[in-house]
């Protein structure tokens, strides 16, 4: 505890905290709360049963009513503690409830039925994770199919993008050829054309190529990103030309120079671009929404969005699915947080 306090208070060498420091820490802690609480709330809620989700005011931790198998009854019965009336202090199991009256039975004496006013009892609850929300996704919905679609799109699009972008970056950074400036301008020009403003013709091109309603229709147009060419080119320029010349003296082909020398040496930049590409593709929404119209081709994002209309009452499944959708990205974040931050700051995002 003392260490925590030391950690929180020690700043500016051994000087005491000034009021500005208190305000700063206050602001940051509020930030931590605002950024994390909604996500934590969602994750906790995804472990609640449908009945627990409907409860208002909600409880913080997932809770479930305790049940007990009583002699003479097949199904487990919910347990209640009596807080008033003639049975005060006893633990009874409920058979059924009619209006404000409940039919109860004493587990110790199951043959006698008791009538109790519901004002006098309180449910006995315990902490329990409703894992059935998650297992139900695999049983009742095509969750694995959506997961596979998303993964396939993400992996394939990222690989294609890394290959074509690094080839282009190599050409633009290591060769002096006529028209290089023109190509560079073209790449800059592409920066100005976000997919959102060419949706209609893009859809025509994709469907004329026979790729509408196919995962390839999402993968191929997404592989053209000027950001990637820029990022990689800036990095490859810093690789000294002498290495290439030496390889040429050894009669290495240009492709071998690219594949065996440039690509390994650009690994840090390629890794940053790979993380960005994975993030973009996994989270992509508008373009898949347009291309993929049949639900068996849906990505996770599309499935989530369409389910929130269809499963209005089934928040339990929806929340579990949301958690599973954000999980891969959260894992990537925890492991690669340092690289993601620098990578995104240096490329200016999408």
């Amino acid at each position, binding site marked *: 505890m003392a260490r925590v306090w030391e950690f929180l208070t020690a700043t500016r060498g051994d000087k005491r905290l000034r009021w500005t420091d208190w305000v700063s820490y206050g602001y940051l802690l509020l930030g931590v709360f605002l950024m994390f609480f909604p996500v934590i709330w969602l994750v906790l809620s995804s472990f609640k049963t449908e009945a627990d989700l409907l409860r208002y*005011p909600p409880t913080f931790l997932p809770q479930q009513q305790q049940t007990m198998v009583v002699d003479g009854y097949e199904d487990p019965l919910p347990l209640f503690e009596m807080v008033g009336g003639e049975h005060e202090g006893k633990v009874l199991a409920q058979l059924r409830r009619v209006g404000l009256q409940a039919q109860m039975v004493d587990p110790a004496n199951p043959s006698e039925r008791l009538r109790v006013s519901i004002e006098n009892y309180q449910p006995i609850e315990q902490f329990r994770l409703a894992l059935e929300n998650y297992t139900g996704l695999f049983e009742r919905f095509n969750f694995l199919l959506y997961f596979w679609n998303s993964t396939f799109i993400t992996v394939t699009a990222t690989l294609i993008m890394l290959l074509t972008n690094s080839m282009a970056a190599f050409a633009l950074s290591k060769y002096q050829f006529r028209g290089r400036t023109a190509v560079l301008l073209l790449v800059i020009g592409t920066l100005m054309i976000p997919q*959102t403003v060419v949706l209609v013709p893009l859809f025509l091109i994709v469907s004329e190529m026979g790729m509408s309603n196919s995962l390839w229709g999402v993968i191929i147009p997404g592989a053209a990103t000027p950001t990637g060419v820029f990022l990689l080119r800036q990095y490859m320029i810093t690789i000294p030309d002498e290495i290439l010349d030496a390889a040429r003296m050894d009669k290495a082909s240009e492709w071998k120079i690219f594949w065996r020398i440039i690509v390994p040496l650009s690994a840090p930049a390629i890794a940053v671009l790979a993380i960005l590409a994975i993030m973009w593709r996994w989270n992509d929404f508008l373009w898949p929404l347009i291309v993929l119209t049949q639900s068996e081709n849906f990505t996770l994002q599309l499935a989530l969005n369409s389910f*929130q209309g269809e499963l209005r009452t089934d928040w339990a499944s929806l929340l579990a699915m949301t958690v599973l959708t954000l999980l891969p990205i959260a894992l990537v974040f925890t492991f690669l947080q340092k690289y993601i931050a620098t990578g995104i700051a240096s490329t200016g995002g999408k």
Partner: protein
Amino acid sequence: MRAIEIPMLALQRMLGVQRLAWVFLIPNLLLFGLFAFLPIFLNVIYALTGGDNILFADRPFIGGRNFDNLLDCGNYLDPNSCREDKFWRAVWNTAWFVTLQVGIMVGFSLLTAVVLNRDIRARGFFRSVFFFPVLLSPVVVALIWKWVLQREGVLNAFLDWVGIGGVNWLVDAQWAFAWSVFLTVWAHMGFYTLILLAGLQAIPRDVYEAATMDRASAWRTFTKITLPLLAPTLLVVLILALIRSVQTFDEVYAFTGGGPGTATTFIIQYIYEEGFAGAPRVWGMAAAASLLVAFVLVILTLIQLWVNRKSVDG
């Protein structure tokens, strides 16, 4: 990779080393051409033709009529007086949204970056906390907040507990709009905070030491040193945020569906609904509207490139 190496070697013998660059460029240029440049030209054709068929053979040429329809307004400030009132509602919603969202977001990003730039313990942790939502997908962001804000959600439970009555947030037009602004700020501010933090750290320390020697107040140091030296970065952030904000669709569409009514229908959603969601599919109108958006975005991007060049040079 031998499958690529052998034909590449043959091409190298045929073309020579320097011209082989084109072979390296072709896959990427093909993608750019087919999915970025060609669509721009086709978009113009769509905007100038009518009908609800996507194939050009069945689209009659109608000249500028799509633009006339879009721009036919008694009073541009009042969507009800416009022929295409849905479009103008979307335009005004977007304009308001962009103004509020970019202003609030850049303001909070700056504040957060300044706080994170102080001598703070666990700075890396706090930095990643603010950055975390940037990674989440728009649909997940929308669902998270929908869950928090629903009628019997945790925010209303808290307000009830405090003694202020809850509100049905997403049914009230103004609240739905306000929460859309909040949600997009929440999801994106970490990204801009990061860029501003990098800008702040690039300001030389000795400038501040000189200010301390001259006994400049903290506020004076901030306005006379930090802000002017950060101005180029701030401008880049502002323009990047503007470009992104104009294109807002995913989060808000998954969050409110554009409602209640048309309270949170923005311009990209208008294009999506005209071209893809409704029947008949009015491709011409969608294309015309997207050309107008493209016009705004090109101007913003040109400004950004110009600013970038200036800040890189000097």
